[in-house]
């Protein structure tokens, strides 16, 4: 029971930081999502020691552990776009799949070549 209360409190704390992040992007008209600003903010606060890791650690672990759950409602949102199930949808799907393959292949090749170069003693950085 005590652990649950602690986790809930920590999640509320993370939500407050997300809110602050949203406020910052709105005030400064940043082209970034507020939650990303919130993440950077918390990272800086942890680095500078303003907040302690233990204050957020358990809540964060629970949220990250259940991350896939939070994407489920938006994934179900696809049912609103029945027109995407037709031929346009098939074409879009083809484009997505092909470009994912291109992306995965190019990044794998680039990374492996860099690693190979490193093993041979060439260091790019």
């Amino acid at each position, binding site marked *: 029971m005590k652990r649950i209360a602690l986790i809930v409190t920590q*999640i509320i704390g*993370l*939500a407050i*930081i*997300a809110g602050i*992040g949203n406020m910052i992007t709105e005030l400064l008209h940043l*082209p*970034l*999502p*507020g*939650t*990303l600003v*919130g*993440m*950077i*903010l*918390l*990272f800086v606060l*942890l*680095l500078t020691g303003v907040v302690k*890791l233990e204050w*957020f*650690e358990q*809540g*964060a672990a629970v*949220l*990250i*552990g259940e*991350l*896939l*759950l*939070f*994407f*489920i*409602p*938006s*994934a*179900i*949102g*696809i049912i609103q*776009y029945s027109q*995407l199930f037709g031929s346009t949808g098939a*074409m*879009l*799907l083809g*484009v*997505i799949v*092909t*470009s*994912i393959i*291109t*992306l*995965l292949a*190019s*990044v*794998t090749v*680039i*990374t492996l070549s*860099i690693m190979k170069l490193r093993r041979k003693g060439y260091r790019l*950085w």
Partner: protein
Amino acid sequence: MVNYNIFQLISIHIIESLVGTLVLYYAFKKLYERSGKKLYLTPLLAVPVVIGLFLVTMHIPYSTYQEGSQYISLMLQPATVAFAVPLYKFRGVVKEYAVPLIVVIGMGCWVAFLGSMGLAEAIGLSPELVHSIAPRSVTTPLALAASDTLGGDPTITAILVIATGLLGMIMTTMLIKRRHIHNRLLKGMLYGISAHGTGTAKAYEDGPKTGAIASLSMIFMGIMTTIIAPIVSALAGVL
């Protein structure tokens, strides 16, 4: 006489969709783990299929389901902030790999961006769709901003982002299994760039180091896309 009022009806929808989603999620999570992590049982694939089919066959509008489920989506906000914790814990890894990640993702991002736009145009999709499809490799809020810059339709981009997250996660998992990729750096990076948030969530299954690299890759990919979008938009104007 049954005494219905509007508040009761609303609260019933909220509880049904909330509890229904949660129960199915935990059921499939258990099933997925017991099955030895069979990909088709992964909750992000199985639960939307089950609930989606249910809503369509029962003629329940998505907006009704969303009344309750929006609270689940809302949890993405603190969850995104929570990524700071593993990033901080693995700050050594972050420092060590920041430069290679930026270089590799910088190159990969151009390939993904130009590749998907070129292909979409080649098979004759409308310019609006071409521009909606371009920024889909990143997390939703960033993709929406990039789609706006390019003149795409944000709603379609949002759907494509989710589709990419699902497909990218599935395809990366298949690639890693088939090619026996054990390098955590490469695994994390592939998940982070191909499937943004969903890929990152999947990467955490592999361990916190893979997850931290995936979240870092996702962030870089997102930032890179917001930078590249206006450049591509300008180039498209010239060509």
